[in-house]
């Protein structure tokens, strides 16, 4: 059972004038039906926030599936022009977004209960906050965003010239130079960067965003339930 997660701005009776929209991680949701971690936590009064998800990139039922989970960094649409063409991921501190569920003093993920094969906290903070410093994570996501912007930005000269040449040569240009096209070269650089990040960190593993169509940045972590 779950309770709808209502960000403050869609409760009309509290408003006197339109409030600006607030960003939050739309992948998360609340669950009331869980096994609490201790007797003092009462499921009836406090819902837990599902902030990690089954690892769909591993074979169903395998060891990897049982012992790892995915933390999702959502896409953001208020940082660049044309966010429908250029995927950008949220560089806000994960779990502390403007409309996230927070406890102000909390800096680390604390388990409040378990459900559906994993453990969750009572706030939007994810288990990733225990595994990597927020500043470092923001740095990684910003670099990924920079690569994506370089690849997909429609206003770049390389992109424009390639487009025009492609049309004038009746698409022969893109057939001949397929692997060396501007977007593909930058996406290969992004691929290499993510591989480098995965080699230099062992507490988490960034899944290549192309696998899910750049709809979210998935990070594989160890299952907090063990």
């Amino acid at each position, binding site marked *: 059972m779950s309770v709808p997660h209502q960000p403050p701005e869609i409760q009309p009776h509290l408003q006197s004038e339109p409030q600006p929209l607030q960003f939050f991680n739309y992948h998360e*949701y609340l669950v009331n039906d869980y096994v609490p971690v201790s007797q003092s936590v009462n499921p009836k009064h406090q819902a837990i926030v599902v902030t990690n998800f089954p690892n769909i990139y591993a074979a169903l039922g395998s060891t990897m599936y049982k012992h790892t989970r995915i933390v999702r960094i959502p896409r953001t649409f208020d940082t660049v022009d044309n966010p429908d063409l250029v995927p950008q991921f949220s560089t806000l501190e994960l779990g502390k977004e403007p409309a996230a569920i927070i406890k102000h003093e909390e800096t680390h993920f604390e388990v409040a209960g378990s459900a559906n094969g994993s453990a969750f906290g009572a706030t939007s903070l994810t288990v990733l906050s225990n595994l990597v410093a927020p500043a470092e994570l923001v740095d990684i996501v910003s670099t990924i965003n920079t690569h994506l912007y370089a690849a997909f930005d429609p206003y770049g000269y390389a992109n424009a010239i390639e487009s025009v040449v492609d049309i004038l040569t009746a698409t022969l240009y893109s057939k001949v130079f397929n692997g060396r096209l501007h977007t593909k070269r930058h996406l290969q650089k992004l691929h290499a960067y993510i591989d480098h990040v995965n080699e230099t960190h062992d507490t988490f593993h960034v899944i290549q965003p192309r696998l899910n169509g750049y709809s979210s940045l998935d990070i594989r972590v160890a299952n907090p339930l063990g």
Partner: protein
Amino acid sequence: MCTKQIAEPAPWFYWFLTNWLVADPKYIVLNQSGSYKNYQAQKQEGLKFVYLVGGRLRVVKTLPINVFVASVLTGLAVLFWVFEARWTWNHLSPALPIVFSYLWLITLAMFIKAATSDPGILPRNVHMPYDLRLPTNTTAPDEYFNAISLPYLHDKFQGVTVKYCSTCHIWRPPRASHCGVCNACVVNHDHHCIYINNCVGLRNYKYFLWFVLGASACGIMAIITGLIHVFHYKTAAEFSIHTFGQSISSYPGSFCLVILSLMAIVYPFLVLLVHILLTCQNLTTREYLNFMRSNKDWKNVFDRHNLLKNLYINWIGRARGTSYLRLTDQYDPEDIRLQRVAPLE
């Protein structure tokens, strides 16, 4: 996919035809090696794609109107080359048939690219909220049924809308939409075009636009040269032609070309006008039909408020990008993106 129940793998020419040349994921035969590519193994319900040439091209399994469109395009060009090319080369300028042929070539290439390439289909099942091993959990959390509004760079009040697709199990980016005909979510979905037999989305909108423009331009060129040819007797002395009737009986091919081109150009030209209007505002057809027409308060947040920028983004700037589900990769039976998962309730 249903592999045919035969005792041993089929001979190579059989699977070359059914697994590589024209591959319908429902009718794949058993391979010699036993391994498959992603395009041969799509198991979702209601999938309507047929893949050609090893998964590199695709068509949608509906009435093949795109074949008719290609025939009209080629047929009129053949008429031009047979009846007009030589005459215009000698009497007007050699540049004319060359320019027409070049324009036609570009139009055909744009048509093939628009009709057979990936419009930007999102991979399925990547945002599963529940564990697939638990059969009772087929309901999504209530939050996943709300349309979420998120702040946009230039509009923090209406913002952009993000929705969860319960068929594809994915949080769609704004402007992505689920196409009922193709049964897939397409990024920046414009519309499903029955004339190219494919969806028009992020990755092939540019080619669709240039195809429509090229088809109109070729048509107009054919009409103009045909008319010049037919009315040439008025501007230059010709031995036996003094009336319009004599002219068209001497040059029936040209007249035929003019009439057929006039008929053929009506629809592409109207589509071109519509899309010029839409691209001037950076609006998709779907947004126009669903929101702008019915709701006076709806604002197109993606409008750059600059005519040249709006046109540039759609006609030139949009990157082709890469496909998200690599169809020519080796199929991994554990790849959830290709499995059949029931839609969430």
